[in-house]
């Protein structure tokens, strides 16, 4: 079915059209969310939230950009919101633990192993994903879209509403920061 026809039918809340949209874009949404959130359950949760948002606000989609670009934007915004919410919860749990109201200790998440990574690269990729968590949100989003989703600078620019040169600069900074973080990591690992 043609994309525009599918969108028109979704605007009329057609269930079959919605199912086709979910089937077509679920891998793209899930993979992006997983790259940013680095947690299988959170990625699935955000994927569902994204499609609910798509269903509810498709009438506001003006078709000025590609439908996939619009879905990518919702995914990134939902994933970033999820991270913020999780951080807030973690901070609250920590404060509660200080006052003895919460006996459960605040545990850092274990290393993330992406299911799409080959076995020989698993350890190195886990270190890289951990380092990615220390990047500022826009650098992390751009790096994920480029490396995990394999998008070009033009596509990333359309999603993040940036020029190609701005995306280039953003990715350059992201890579530089990652190298700095990794250098500190390996220096301290050796120092121990």
């Amino acid at each position, binding site marked *: 079915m043609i994309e525009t026809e599918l969108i028109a039918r979704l605007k009329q809340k057609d269930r079959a059209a919605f199912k086709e949209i979910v*089937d077509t874009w679920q891998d793209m949404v899930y993979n992006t969310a997983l790259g940013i959130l680095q947690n299988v359950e959170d990625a699935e949760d955000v994927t569902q939230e994204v499609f609910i948002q798509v269903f509810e606000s498709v009438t506001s989609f003006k078709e000025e950009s590609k439908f996939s670009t619009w879905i990518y934007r919702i995914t990134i915004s939902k994933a970033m919101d999820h991270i913020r919410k999780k951080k807030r919860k973690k901070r609250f749990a920590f404060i509660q633990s200080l006052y003895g109201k919460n006996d459960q200790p605040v545990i850092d998440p274990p290393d993330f192993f*992406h299911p799409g990574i080959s076995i020989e690269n698993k350890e190195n990729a886990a270190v890289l994903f951990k380092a990615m968590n220390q990047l500022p949100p826009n650098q992390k989003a751009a790096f994920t879209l480029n490396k995990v989703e394999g998008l070009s600078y033009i596509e990333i620019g359309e999603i993040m509403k940036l020029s190609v040169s701005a995306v280039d600069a953003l990715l350059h900074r992201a890579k530089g920061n990652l190298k700095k973080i990794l250098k500190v990591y390996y220096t301290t690992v050796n120092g121990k």
Partner: protein
Amino acid sequence: MKDENIHKKIEEVMQSIDNISKASPRPFLFTRLEARMQREKNIWEKLSSFVARPVVAFACICLVIMINAMVILSANTSENSLVQQNSESATVDEYSQVTTTLYDFENVRP
């Protein structure tokens, strides 16, 4: 680890996700999604049906009317007391009435 070994390791790590394959969600995502949407819809439906119940609606209207009445009455009272205060001070100014206290009587100079 020497510096050059660290650099080599960093390059290896940076390239570790170059050939990443796409991950897929668990099967039947659409079914789970529909169930979630139904659940969320049910919450709103329950809330709207609760608000629409005659007893709740009547109680809400009464509460709004009561709050309005209280605000109007309190505004009127404060307005009246202000007007009264103003007229009293105007009379005092006009007739030079000064309230005498026991202290004034005791300290009258001969």
